[in-house]
C-alpha cells in the first residue's frame, strides 16, 4: 500500500471535500470529523513519504500509469517531502484549533466551509507534490479559488479585499501559465524533469530568458513580494480567523517553494545564477521587501495587520536567501519555509483566540490580555520571540543560516536588512506585550492588591494546539541541525557551490 502514498495524500482530502459538502446539506455534525480524519490521514502519509525519501532517496509516481513526458508524474524528493509534512501539519492543527470559532462564525455554513477548507489543503498538497508544470497551474487555481471564497466571507471590507486578491492572483497565475506556455513552445514537454533536460540544451535563446522573467513576475505576484504585495494586507487581515489560520502560514510559503522548484529544478542553477545583474537586483528587491515590510508594520494599529506586514517581510527573507545562491543561504531559506510556517501559525492562532474572546484585535481590545488569557498570550510571546529571532526558538536558526550565507557571498545589504527587521520586530511585539501587560491604567488603580480578574481563556482545543505549536517552535529550533543535514542539504541540486 505504501507505494501509493503520493496519490493517497491528495485523493483522500479531495474525496472527503466532496463528501463533506454533501454532509453539509444532509447532516451537519459529520463535517468536522470527516475533515479531521482526511487531513489526519494526509499528515500520516506525508510523514511516511518523508521517512521513505530519507531512507531510500527520491521516488516517482506515474498518474494513470503513463510514463513521464506523456502522462503526469509525481517526483517526491527531500525538498517537497519536507514541505508536504509542514503543509499537512499546519492544515491539521489549524483545523482542530479553530473548531469552536467556525461553529460560532458560520453556524449554518460549516459544511461548505470545511469543504472549501479541505479543497484548499488538497490544492496546496498537490502544488507541493506535483512534477508537472501545467498540473501545478491547475492546483494553484484550486488553492486560489478556495482562498478567495474563504477570505471573501469575512467581515467589514473582506469582499473588496478578496476581489483585489482575485485580480492580482489571476494576473499572477496567468503570467505563470504564460511562462509555462513559452517553455512548452520552446521544448514541447510539460514535465519538470524533462523540461530541465531540454532547457539546458537551448539555454542561449531569448525564449528561455523571457519565460524565466515571466514565471518570476507571476510567482512574485502570487507570493506578495514587496512591490506586488498590495493585495495581501487587507485580504489576510479581514479574513475570518479560522481561514486566516491556514491561508496566512501556507500560501506565501508554498509559493516560495514553487519559486525554488522552478528556479533550481527546471531552470537549473547554471542558468538561474548565470545572470549577475539579475541576482543583485533580486537581492536588493528582497532586502527592500524586508525593510519596507517592517516599516509598514510599525504604522499599523491592530494585531492582525502587524502580523500580516511581518509576513510580507518574511517573504523577503526566503527570496533573498534563494538569490544569494550558496548552499548555506538556500538551506536557510528552505529552513525558513518550515520555521516561518510554524511561527505564523502560532501567532495567527493566538490572534484568533484573542479576537474570539476579546471581540476584536485592535490595541484597545487587547488591554489586560495577559491577565485574562495567560496561556494564549504566553504562546504569542513564544511566537513573537521566534519572529524576533531569539535562540532557543526556530526563528533564530533560519536567520543564522541566511546571515552566514549572505556573509560568505558578501551581500551586506541583506545582512543589514535582516538585523534591522529583528530590531523592528522587537519594537512591534513588545508594544503589544506592553498593552497586554500594563494596561488598563484608568480602569483600576495600579494593580496593587487587586484580586486577579477571572481568567477568560480561549476554548480548550485552541489552547492545547497553541501550546503544542509553541513547544514545536522550540523543538524545531533544537532539531534544526538534524533537519538541515539530513533533509535540506541533500535536497539542494548539485550545481550550487
Amino acid at each position, binding site marked *: 500500500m505504501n507505494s501509493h502514498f503520493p496519490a493517497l495524500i491528495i485523493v483522500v482530502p479531495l*474525496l472527503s471535500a466532496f463528501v463533506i459538502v454533501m454532509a453539509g446539506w444532509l447532516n451537519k455534525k459529520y463535517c468536522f470529523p470527516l475533515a479531521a480524519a482526511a487531513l489526519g490521514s494526509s499528515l500520516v502519509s506525508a510523514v511516511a513519504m518523508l521517512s521513505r525519501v530519507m531512507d531510500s532517496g527520491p521516488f516517482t509516481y506515474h498518474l494513470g500509469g503513463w510514463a513521464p513526458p506523456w502522462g503526469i508524474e509525481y517526483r517526491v524528493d527531500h525538498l517537497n517531502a519536507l514541505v508536504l509534512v509542514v503543509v499537512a501539519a499546519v492544515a491539521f492543527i489549524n483545523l482542530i484549533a479553530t473548531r469552536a470559532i467556525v461553529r460560532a462564525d458560520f453556524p449554518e455554513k460549516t459544511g461548505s466551509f470545511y469543504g472549501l477548507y479541505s479543497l484548499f489543503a488538497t490544492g496546496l498538497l498537490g502544488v507541493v507534490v506535483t512534477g508537472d508544470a501545467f498540473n501545478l497551474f491547475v492546483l494553484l487555481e484550486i488553492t486560489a479559488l478556495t482562498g478567495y471564497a474563504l477570505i471573501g466571507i469575512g467581515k467589514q471590507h473582506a469582499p473588496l479585499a478578496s476581489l483585489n486578491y482575485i485580480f492580482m492572483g489571476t494576473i499572477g497565475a496567468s503570467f505563470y501559465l504564460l511562462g509555462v506556455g513559452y517553455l512548452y513552445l520552446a521544448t514541447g514537454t510539460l514535465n519538470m524533469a524533462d523540461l530541465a533536460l531540454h532547457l539546458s540544451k537551448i539555454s542561449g535563446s531569448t525564449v528561455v530568458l523571457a519565460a524565466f522573467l515571466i514565471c518570476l513576475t507571476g510567482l512574485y505576484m502570487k507570493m506578495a513580494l514587496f512591490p506586488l504585495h498590495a493585495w495581501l494586507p487587507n485580504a489576510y487581515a479581514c479574513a475570518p480567523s479560522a481561514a486566516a489560520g491556514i491561508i496566512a502560514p501556507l500560501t506565501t510559503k508554498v509559493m516560495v517553494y514553487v519559486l525554488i522548484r522552478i528556479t533550481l529544478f527546471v531552470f537549473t542553477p547554471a542558468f538561474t545564477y548565470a545572470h549577475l545583474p539579475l541576482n543583485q537586483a533580486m537581492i536588493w528587491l528582497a532586502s527592500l521587501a524586508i525593510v519596507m515590510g517592517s516599516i509598514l508594520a510599525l504604522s499599523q494599529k491592530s494585531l492582525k495587520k502587524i502580523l500580516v506586514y511581518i509576513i510580507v517581510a518574511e517573504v523577503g527573507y526566503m527570496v533573498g536567501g534563494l538569490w544569494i545562491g550558496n548552499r548555506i543561504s538556500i538551506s536557510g531559506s528552505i529552513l525558513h519555509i518550515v520555521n516561518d510556517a510554524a511561527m505564523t501559525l502560532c501567532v495567527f492562532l493566538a490572534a484568533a483566540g484573542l479576537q474570539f474572546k476579546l471581540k476584536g484585535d485592535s490595541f484597545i481590545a487587547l488591554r489586560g490580555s495577559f491577565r485574562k488569557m495567560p496561556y494564549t498570550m504566553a504562546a504569542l510571546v513564544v511566537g513573537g520571540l521566534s519572529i524576533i529571532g531569539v535562540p532557543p526558538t526556530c526563528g533564530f536558526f533560519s536567520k543564522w543560516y541566511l546571515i552566514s550565507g549572505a556573509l560568505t557571498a558578501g551581500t551586506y545589504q541583506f545582512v543589514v536588512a535582516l538585523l534591522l527587521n529583528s530590531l523592528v520586530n522587537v519594537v512591534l511585539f513588545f508594544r503589544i506585550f506592553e498593552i497586554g501587560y500594563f494596561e488598563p491604567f484608568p480602569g483600576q488603580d495600579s494593580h496593587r492588591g487587586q484580586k486577579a480578574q477571572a481568567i477568560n481563556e480561549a476554548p480548550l482545543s485552541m489552547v492545547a494546539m497553541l501550546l503544542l505549536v509553541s513547544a514545536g517552535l522550540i523543538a524545531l529550533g533544537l532539531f534544526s541541525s538534524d533537519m538541515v543535514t539530513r533533509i535540506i542539504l541533500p535536497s539542494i541540486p548539485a550545481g550550487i557551490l
Partner: protein
Amino acid sequence: MKTFGIIAVVLCGALLIYGTVDFPEWGDPASPASTYVSPYYIEHSIPDTSVPNIVTAILADYRGYDTMFETAVVFAAGIACIFLLRIEKRDSPRSRLYRHIPTGVTIRIEQGGRLPEGSRDLERIDSVWVPYDLIIKTGCRLVIPFIQLFALYVIAHGHHSPGGGFQGGVIFGAAIILYALAYDLRTAQTHLPIRTSVLLSSTGVLIYAGTGALCLLLGANFLNYSALAGLLGVDPVTARSHGILIVEIGVALAVMAVMVGLYYIISSAGRLDEGL
C-alpha cells in the same frame, strides 16, 4: 494611477515582444511543440485507448489527473458562490403578485397576505413584473427536451466527435437555465432545487475521483483505467475507453449541476426567491 498603469502595461508588452524573437513561425510543422510529445499521442491514442478523438483521449486518460482537478475547480466555484452569497434567514416579501391565467389580470396582495397554493388558474409571478409571455413559455417548453437530448448526444459521442463531458454538461445546464428564464426561479426550483443541484455536483465529481480511487484499490496507479478490465470483463484497452466514458459522465453531471447552482445563486443574489 492611470499613468503608472500605462507604463506598467507598456513595459510588460515590451517584455513579451522581446520574448517572441526566437519563436517558431505560426503553424510551422517542425516547431518543437509539434515534434516532441504530441506525435506520441497522435500515433498511440487508438492502440492505447481505442478512442478516435485524441483530445478526449488525452483529456480523460493521458492527462486525466488534470481534468479531475479541473472538475474540482468547477465544483469549488459552485460551492464558493453558494458559500459567499447564500442568505439563510429570508424575511418574507411585503407584497405578492398573482396573475389570473384565463383573463391575464394581475392581483397584488399587501402586508404579506397569501393565496392558497393549489389554485388552478391563479399563478404567482415575480415582483419585477414580467409581461404575459405565453409564446415564450410554450416555445421553451417545446425546445427544452430537444436541447437536453442534444446535450446527452454530445456527452455520449465525445469519443468520436468534438464534445465530451464539459460541453455536454454545459448544454444540459443551459437547458435548465432556459427553463428558469422562461418561467421563474420558483418553478425551476420545484424541478431542481438548490439542494439537489449541490448533491448532484458532488456525486458527479465523486464519480470521477471514485473511478480513480477504484483503480487504486484494484492495485494499479491512480486513474489507470486498465485496472478496470477485470471488473468490466473487457480487455484493458477497451476498459480504458469505458473508463473515459464513465469519467465523462461524472464530469457532465458535475458541470450541469454547478452551472444551474451558479445561475440560481447569482441571479437571485443569494435569496433564491426571484431570479431574472
